[in-house]
């Protein structure tokens, strides 16, 4: 499918002298917007009241969006690699913004199915395309520091939630004077509808700015002082390329799928339950030593570690290697989970410290995976391969909460649970991390039979010649 010429890849090939530090803000402009997906809890209660429905019916909106993220990233990954980041960011902006506008209409007219269609389906497609759109471009601009580059962009996804949560509260306060953000007050449906309208328009402008400034490096470009032959000396790092179609036929792809699935499922186990979990761990009879406001603070702290881990651990992987850093995420994470289950309830600071480091590994796992893919499969279609791997995220998004909620449902009723009730769920996560650890250990260089012929044209060249 051809794209309009102003979006075409050959229109955005950087001239000699272009400064590559303009690319991270372009990527952040997209990821800071789509990261809003993790801030949906802000208006969840308002939508339950507005539609007079259950929390599950409203929770489905987010679930649809995350499933669509994985599916669209997998389905459009090759298209994104072929047409370049401007076309991808532009398309993501249109879908993400349209999702909000259709959702706003659904809330205003009290049609919940329109919110499913808008935010869930249309917005979810924008999420998937937007998430992978800048990744391969950043890897090509920063061949010397791919972990740092992808860490910066994917950190933005974590940062997007940090911005959207307080911003949404303040906007709903503006649109509904009766709502002041304190416990017990719920914003009106029209305030949420106006919030969706505002976010849709603001995100459109922001993401289009990213699409406007993004550039791809010219064929053969490399940073000053960077010698690709030095990269080859590191184990598991290839200078060959594997197509997305072939990548999914390799055991390496599926081993990384398992690694990502296990790491994300384990992290979601804590993230989903963060607020009630800390209260339950320190419950004494009917009351908890941890107040509701302190529990909200704990959620905030986890968000900070989730975002920080994306940047810090992914950047660290440039120095210690991708396989070793996943051994840390999964191996040390496993030990921390055991400690959380056994001594986590002995002191609040121990619980907070363990959970914070676990969540930083969760974020790090997300941010480092594109660089790991680039090491194994080369840069040729790394965006498309990354897109296909994100189906692991969709699966984990369903499995993580399912495991925790199923275990907790069998242990008692919310508000009466204690630390011991979480133990079975935590040990299931330990088992999952062990599986992920073994999968990571089994990762070896991709067999040469999957490599593209050396004379194969790059994606950029293919596209340019196709347009000519």
């Amino acid at each position, binding site marked *: 499918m051809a794209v309009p010429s102003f979006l075409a890849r050959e229109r955005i090939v950087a*001239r*000699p*002298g272009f400064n590559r530090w303009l690319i991270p803000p372009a990527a952040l402009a997209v990821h800071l917007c789509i990261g809003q997906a993790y801030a949906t809890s802000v208006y969840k209660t308002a939508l339950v009241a507005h539609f007079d429905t259950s929390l599950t019916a409203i929770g489905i909106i987010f679930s649809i969006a995350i499933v669509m993220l994985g599916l669209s990233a997998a389905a459009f990954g090759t298209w994104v690699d072929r047409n370049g980041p401007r076309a991808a960011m532009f398309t993501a902006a249109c879908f993400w913004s349209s999702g909000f506008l259709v959702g706003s209409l659904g809330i205003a007219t009290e049609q919940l199915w329109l919110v499913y269609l808008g935010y869930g389906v249309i917005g979810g497609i924008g999420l998937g395309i937007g998430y992978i759109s800048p990744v391969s471009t950043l890897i090509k601009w920063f061949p010397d520091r791919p972990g740092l580059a992808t860490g910066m962009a994917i950190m*933005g996804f974590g940062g997007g939630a*940090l*911005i959207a949560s307080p*911003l949404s509260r303040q906007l709903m306060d503006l649109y509904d004077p009766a709502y002041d953000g304190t416990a017990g007050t719920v914003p009106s449906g029209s305030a949420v509808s106006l919030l969706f309208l505002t976010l849709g328009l603001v995100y459109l402008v922001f993401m289009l700015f990213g699409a406007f400034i993004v550039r791809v490096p010219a064929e053969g470009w490399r940073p000053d002082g960077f010698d690709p032959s030095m990269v080859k000396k590191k184990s598991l790092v290839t200078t060959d390329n594997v197509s997305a179609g072939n990548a999914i036929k390799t055991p390496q792809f599926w081993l990384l799928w398992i690694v990502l699935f296990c790491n994300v499922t384990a992290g979601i186990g804590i993230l989903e339950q963060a607020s009630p979990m800390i209260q339950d761990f320190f419950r004494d009879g009917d009351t908890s030593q941890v107040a509701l406001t*302190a529990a909200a603070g704990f959620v905030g702290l986890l968000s900070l570690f989730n975002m920080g881990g994306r940047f810090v651990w992914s950047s660290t992987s440039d120095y210690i290697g991708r396989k070793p850093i996943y051994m840390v995420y999964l191996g040390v994470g496993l030990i921390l989970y055991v400690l959380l289950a056994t001594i986590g309830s002995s002191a609040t600071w121990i619980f907070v410290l363990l959970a914070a480091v676990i969540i930083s590994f969760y974020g790090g796992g997300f941010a480092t995976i594109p660089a790991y893919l680039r090491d194994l499969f080369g840069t040729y279609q790394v965006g498309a391969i990354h897109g296909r791997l994100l189906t692991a995220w969709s699966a984990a998004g369903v499995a993580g909460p399912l495991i925790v909620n199923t275990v907790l449902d069998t242990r008692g009723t919310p508000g009466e649970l204690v630390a011991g009730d979480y133990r079975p769920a935590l040990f299931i996560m330990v088992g999952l991390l062990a599986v992920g650890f073994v999968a990571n250990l089994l990762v070896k260089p991709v067999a040469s039979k999957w490599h593209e012929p050396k004379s194969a044209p790059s994606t950029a060249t293919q596209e340019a010649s196709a347009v000519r």
Partner: protein
Amino acid sequence: MSSPASTGTQQPSSTPAALIAFAWTLVGVPLVYGLYQTVKTASSLFTG
């Protein structure tokens, strides 16, 4: 760190420093706002 492109047949052109500063400011300001608000909320864990 600035890294000029080292290959290509097009005329060289430098990226205006003001554009880079503007782009980083545009993404940096909302990020700092979000960080500040979240740190404020997180601090209640230690004070509340």
